[in-house]
């Protein structure tokens, strides 16, 4: 089962939920992979300090022009929807940072003047801690497009009984790439106006993707009632509530899993799993 932990708003607690849920599932004997898809800032490793055992480069296909074969026909430039290849006065220029690696230009070129080359976009790192597989992506600094890396990171979770995906924030391509293919999405938000606004965007996105989802309310004892009101109207189950507890924040700030420091919180995760089972069976 693949569970994606996502949110619209950043800083709502995706990583605290992901890292602790993975910890709990691993503790009760499941075979778990924790996949950190927040490739601009993967943080789950901080709570585990895993033993890294593999580090792989991730490359992406980009075109390169053979100026001798190129006739300046402009077909490639007309084809590219991202402006990553232009033809100016018969000279073809490529802009790899804008390229989405579709290879359309290469396939369309009548004189085979475009060749496939690769561009490093980041790394996938694999680690282990007490049988828990931890996978994270590290986007190369300066790289603008993370979805191809996220796709690679996710590939390493295949085969595990439960895969927890810690998604990047937002509701654009990186988040969608991370969520895609999941059996369930747990949206994390906080009961604040910003939390609600971005939750609505995330709900619209997940509905479009057609994946079953429920809500985790973090710092549930702050803010106002509006997230609850919204969930009632929209019929969204709230299956995990984490209160605004200073001790949780302290554990987090010290890089510790709060379930380890405050084991009495295990019961909220037990309830979460029960709710997940119920949702799965209906």
């Amino acid at each position, binding site marked *: 089962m693949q569970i994606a932990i996502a949110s619209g708003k950043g800083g709502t607690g995706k990583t605290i939920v992901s890292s602790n849920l993975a910890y709990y599932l691993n503790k009760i004997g499941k075979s778990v992979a924790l996949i950190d898809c927040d490739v601009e800032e993967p943080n789950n490793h901080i709570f585990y300090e895993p033993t890294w055992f593999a580090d792989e480069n991730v490359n992406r296909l980009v075109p390169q022009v053979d100026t001798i074969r190129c006739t300046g026909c402009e077909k490639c430039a007309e084809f590219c929807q991202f402006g990553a290849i232009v033809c*100016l*006065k018969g000279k073809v220029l490529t*802009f790899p*940072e804008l390229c989405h690696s579709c290879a359309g230009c290469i396939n369309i070129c009548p004189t085979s003047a475009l060749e496939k080359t690769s561009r490093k976009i980041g790394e996938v790192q694999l680690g282990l801690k007490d049988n828990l597989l931890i996978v994270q992506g590290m986007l190369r600094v*300066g790289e603008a497009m993370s979805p191809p890396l996220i796709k690679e990171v996710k590939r390493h979770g295949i085969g595990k009984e439960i895969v927890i995906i810690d998604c990047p924030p937002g509701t654009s391509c990186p988040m969608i790439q991370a969520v895609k293919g999941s059996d369930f999405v747990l949206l994390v938000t906080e009961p604040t106006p910003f939390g609600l606004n971005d939750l609505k965007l995330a709900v619209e996105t997940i509905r479009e993707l057609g994946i079953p989802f429920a809500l985790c309310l973090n710092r549930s004892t702050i803010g106002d009632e509006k997230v609850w009101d919204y969930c009632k109207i929209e019929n969204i189950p709230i299956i995990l509530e984490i209160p605004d507890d200073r001790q949780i924040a302290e554990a987090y700030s010290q890089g510790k899993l709060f379930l380890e420091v405050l084991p009495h919180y295990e019961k909220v995760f037990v309830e979460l799993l029960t709710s997940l089972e119920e949702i799965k069976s209906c």
Partner: protein
Amino acid sequence: MKVALSSKGQTIESQLEERFGRSPNFIIYDLGNDSYQAIDNTQILNSAQGAGIQAAENIVNTGVDALISGNVGPKAFRALQAAGIDIYLTRGTTVKKALDDFKKGKLSKAKSNNVDGHWF
């Protein structure tokens, strides 16, 4: 010789727009007969990324030999350079004044982009 100028408005009395790729208009000035036409760049101004490259394509197609603008980023610079367009940078002026300065040789040619890309 034709010169392109990034412009806030559609006449030569307009303020020179400092941004190149996201300039609302371009004034294409023909020094041969002292006439000009304005081209609308709004569609490119609103594009998510690669505005500089598209704007370069736009002005290259008008057959200009030089560009006068406020700032040119790395990708636009590469594109303009490949097309053999000379770039002159000036700021806080009108299109008309910038043209006069250009004609008097007061503007110097840019050797590289003067600003960074927006996300690199």
